[in-house]
């Protein structure tokens, strides 16, 4: 197990290195000039040139890369070209909201989606199955921001149950946190629920056709025990996998949701940084999200062995 985790951690190094090089080159090939956004509308070409020099943007690419990468290895993510603040500080400030919303989304999604998928598979080809599947296809079909607007309109504007926008950290009070986090989490959860419910259903359908389920029924085991004790645990690995890979989808959704609900998270930070060509921030954020993605999937892979004793590392 330990050796496996170590191996996997080592295997993430080339992945992240490729991500780093790729993002670095992509950004440097993209038109745009952080110096220009820094200086504003009335700057003269000579002024811009001086600022570029200061920011090191006139150095050869490989020097810039080596400088950045070397700093990063030392734990220095650099300084925002635009706001001149430490990227690590920005990440620290912005990661909390995103992770809290993401975790809440995952909890809501799993709590809703797994029972939905199990019941749909159990009642295969009945109206329940049809209803669950329709919901999940629908979840895939409506743009995230539209879902967000509808939820705001209904719950914040018409019913006034929760605030329209904003974010409060759990340390400001659990009530404040939940009232603000619930709509964004639900918005994000629509896709995730759809994804997990579909996978749960598919995986359960497969498992329910297995011999050991027949064995369990032949033993006279009650149906709920068959479903949840015998079948669901066996169906867990693909469900976990989709939770892991769906994490990428979640990050994409976060970018939009943070805009709609005005949440100061890393999604918005990254989009703003891309639009402003704030290279150190973009690089750090993409590496960070890639790293989180890789880690989440590593955790998912390791957790397989909790569900399936055949999987040993």
């Amino acid at each position, binding site marked *: 197990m330990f050796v496996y985790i170590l191996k996997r951690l080592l295997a993430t190094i080339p992945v992240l290195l490729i991500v780093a090089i790729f993002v670095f080159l992509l950004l440097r090939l993209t038109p745009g000039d952080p110096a220009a956004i*820094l200086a504003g509308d009335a700057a003269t070409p000579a002024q811009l040139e001086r600022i570029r020099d200061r920011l090191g943007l006139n150095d050869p690419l490989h020097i810039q890369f080596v400088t950045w990468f070397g700093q990063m290895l030392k734990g220095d993510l650099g300084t925002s070209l635009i706001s001149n603040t430490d990227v690590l500080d920005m990440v*620290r400030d912005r*990661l*909390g909201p995103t*992770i809290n919303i993401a975790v809440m989304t995952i909890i809501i999604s799993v709590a809703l989606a*797994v029972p939905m998928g199990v019941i749909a598979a159990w009642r295969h080809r009945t109206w329940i199955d049809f209803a669950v599947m329709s919901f999940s296809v629908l979840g895939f079909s409506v743009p995230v921001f539209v879902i967000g607007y509808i939820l705001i309109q209904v719950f914040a504007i018409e019913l006034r149950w929760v605030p329209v926008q904003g974010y409060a950290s759990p340390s400001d009070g659990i009530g404040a946190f939940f009232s603000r986090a619930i709509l964004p989490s639900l918005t994000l959860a629509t896709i995730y629920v759809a994804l997990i419910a579909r996978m749960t259903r598919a995986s359960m359908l497969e498992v329910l056709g297995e011999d050991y389920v027949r064995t369990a029924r032949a033993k006279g085991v009650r149906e709920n025990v068959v479903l949840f004790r015998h079948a669901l645990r066996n169906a867990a690995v693909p469900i976990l996998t989709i939770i892991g890979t769906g994490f990428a989808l979640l990050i994409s959704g976060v970018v939009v949701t943070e805009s709609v609900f005005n949440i100061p998270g890393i999604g918005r930070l990254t989009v703003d940084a891309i*639009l402003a060509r704030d290279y150190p921030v973009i690089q750090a954020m993409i590496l960070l999200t890639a790293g989180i993605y890789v880690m989440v999937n590593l955790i998912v892979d390791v957790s397989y062995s909790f569900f399936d004793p055949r999987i040993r590392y």
Partner: protein
Amino acid sequence: MKNLRSNLPGSRTLAAALMASGALLAPAAATAQEDETTITAVMHSGLRVLDPVITTAHITRNHGYMIYDVLTAADENFEPQPQMADWEVSEDELTYTFTLRDGLMFHDGAPVTGADVVASLERWGERDSGGQMIFDVTESLEAPDDKTIVWTLSEPFGPLMDVISKQSAVPPFIMPVRVAETSADETITEYVGSGPFVFNEEEYEPGVSVTYEKFDDYVPREEEASWMAGGKNVNVDRVVWTTMPDNLTAINALAAGEIDYIEQLQIDLMPILESAPDVVVETRDPLGYVTIGRPNFLHPPFDNKLVRQAALAALGQEEMLATMQGDPEYYNVCGAIFGCSTPLGDESGSDIVTEGPNPERSKELLEEAGYDGTPIVVMAPTDVVSLVNQPVVAAQALREGGFEVDLQSMDWQSVVQRRAQQAPIGEGGWNMFFTNWMVPEISDPLINVMVNGRGDDAWFGWPTDPEIEEMRAEFVAAKTPEEQKEIAVRMQEHVMDNVNYIMMGEYVIPQARRDNIQNMIQSPVPVFWNVTKEAE
């Protein structure tokens, strides 16, 4: 369902771990005390750059007015008034002597001294175009004692007080000497001013929110506040600026009372607020903005004056403004290159664009110019709301006027980069772009960068226009306002003929506030002094 729980230990542990890490990373609680008054304001853009000298971004200038003070400032009549200092001008107009008033103090407790002022003015002089012109004729700038600053010129510079009192682009904010010694190409890293508010560095999140606290030791002037001049009395404890990427979210938040103030309201969305009884929509800055189009003088076809004139004829202000603003109450057809409500404003020769569009005239001119149908590249930003419409409307009008138009969409950053490219069209160049200015930023020939005619040293578009340069020199030398005005009218006529830029009209952007936010002064800069907040 009981079984479900016990069957999913892994996901629970995972969730708990993530939750824990999330809680650790959560920013320190911004708990406001009960009895404090806080104004939460949604500004037009996120504050990312904290150095008001290095950038011309409006949000950074607004930030500057919160935490810094200025020597002198223009009042609502564009007249310079004392703020931190009184001044005297020598008979020969070569020596300006400023005397700091009593009680000026930086947020760190140090008094403001002449040395601070000198260092701040020098740094500003490196960045600001007007400042550069003054320093070109500066003999010396010194602080003989803590209270006095003496500025000696080699030749008279008529508009000096106007330039250092200007409220926009880059006003000379006064910083401590140690901060002001930062190179003008590098952003400052310490944010200490002597203004009415203190910057809260802890709670600053670039692009998201910034918090200001009342500076208790600030001594306001006794005069009534008038624009940037007069007494800056702070009546609230905290001001929090936030940004909302979504206009609709902001409006809903205002209606729900989650925020107090929206600096710029999208006019089309005003009907939503009609049903909110405790929200007031109004215009705070009657001068407003101008929107302009800028041709590139370096490359065909706009290197040809006739083609530029054709573009002027093809475009019509009313159409453009109506599309941008909708409600005529919030725009003003105006052909004055220095703005219609400014002392130098004059509309001579602008009928062609104010009464346009005139596609026939455009076609005639194109015919005359021998326009060969080469598509003109118009850059269209996609991500800056206030600049999205102009190129789209213009493209349609230009096409009707006989132009071939290649409307190239890109994000604002790409526009910013590409407009600096002098290369021919095929190699990454461009023919036309649009931008907006606040009226005070174009209100005289020294401030207005678009009437700079110095070729490669001019603003993007690079017109080489000796005639206008001559007029600018005359303007600096002019002795009286009447003389200045006369020169301005000539410049207006010249620009309308030469089409240095295309004035597309004036517009104002209304603001919205909760009705318990009161006593806001009229101002082009959304300032937070004098404002009061009643309990709701």
